């Protein structure tokens, strides 16, 4: 079942794109032209045949998947299997050794590093981020975003004084400040309490049901919301 570094299972619930069937896996998951034709039409993200290596070690090769409107793509796999590297490829921080990545829409990325400056307050951080992403967010909507992640009371505290979970909430508040159809989240549940996890689940459900998509690397069940989005899993080998 598990070939080193190869895509191993894909597509759990959705009827969309079985890109990587056991037959073509060995050749590196080739998408046949007719399949591709009905797939690219409205997808927000397409990864085709991507390959990443660390030194001599192949993390994955011939990996292909896509994110349609309404999709929640879960990237699963043990530590060191290349989940973070894959996400960094998707967002453009890392160039894969081979293959194509096409993003048709704006995306937001929440990674392992918070992207939050510890010497500034949450509101200042988000103000900077809004300026960076050219979002038309005023202080009011930023305050509302912070309220939504449960940090309304701490909006003027210096981020260094916040706990890890609170800092993660500030990172997640970025998703509310700047609207983007595609979210790319690396372990979004890390450091969050039960409340926070539920919040992320709801957030994802709401995001995806509005015809947008998210790609998440995770070890946990992301959402148990009743209107859970169409979840697909991309599992990376050991």
């Amino acid at each position, binding site marked *: 079942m598990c070939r080193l570094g190869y895509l191993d299972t894909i597509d759990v619930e959705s009827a969309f794109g079985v890109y990587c069937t056991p037959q073509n896996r060995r050749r590196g998951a080739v998408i046949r032209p007719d399949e591709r034709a009905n797939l690219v039409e409205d997808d927000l993200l397409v990864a085709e045949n991507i390959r990443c290596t660390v030194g001599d070690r192949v993390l994955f090769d011939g990996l292909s998947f896509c994110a349609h409107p309404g999709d929640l793509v879960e990237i699963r796999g043990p530590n060191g299997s290349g989940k973070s590297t894959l996400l960094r490829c998707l967002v453009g921080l*890392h160039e894969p050794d081979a293959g194509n990545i096409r993003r048709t829409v704006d995306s937001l990325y929440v990674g392992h590093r918070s*992207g939050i*400056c510890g010497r*500034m307050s949450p509101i200042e951080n988000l103000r900077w*981020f809004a*300026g*960076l992403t050219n979002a038309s967010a005023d202080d009011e909507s930023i305050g509302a975003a912070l309220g939504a992640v449960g940090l309304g009371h701490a909006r003027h505290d210096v981020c260094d004084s916040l706990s890890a979970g609170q800092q993660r909430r500030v990172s997640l508040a970025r998703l509310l400040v700047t609207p983007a159809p595609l979210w790319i989240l690396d372990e979004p549940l890390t450091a969050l309490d039960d409340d926070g996890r539920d919040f992320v689940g709801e957030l994802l459900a709401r995001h995806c049901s509005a015809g947008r998509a998210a790609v998440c690397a995770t070890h946990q069940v992301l959402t148990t919301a009743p209107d859970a989005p169409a979840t697909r899993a991309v599992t990376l080998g050991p």
Partner: protein
Amino acid sequence: MRLFITQFRRDLVLAVRSRSDAANPLVFFVLATVLLGLGTGSELVPGVIWVLALFANVLAVEGVFRRDHEDGTLEQLLIHAQPLFPAVVGKLAAHWALSGLPVAVLSPVAAIMLTGTTTGIGVLVLTLCIGTPALTLLGAIGSALTVATGRGGLLVAILVLPFYVPVLIFGAGASTAAMLGDPVAFQLLALSALLAACLTAAPFAVGKALAISQEY
């Protein structure tokens, strides 16, 4: 322009907030001036001040991207700042405003301490105002190349000091000539040309180096 302002304001606020960080190059500059005043005579003063300003610059610029790299704001910047150029320039402008500019402003005091005259001081300040931003832009390349290594310091100095040489030559040349009452137009023009070249080319190199540093 919005990207420039966004990044400039953020970095200015941060620099003002951690005052000792921002003061370090300045204190170094003053301290070294005093040591030199105790140790040497006065003929070479403009050149000496220029060398000190240069060292203060390299010390300051060495860590300009480090904290942003550690907390992940750098990767957000690389993802979202389209184009990257104004954001990089904004960041470096904020950095310069609190490292190079104070040194330039303070340099007359240093010059008077060391020479006792005021001849050519205007030119000295002017050359520092034109020259130190060029140094910051060049130094930022070295800083960006080493940001992910966790060690900058001496390595950055070794990487960028050769690139500082032209700026030093024309900056110190103009200041010395002014103190002796010689014409300085050529050196000032050459210095301005260097700044223009750095301003157009260096941010691209910095952006490329930062992108490389964020690769996994």
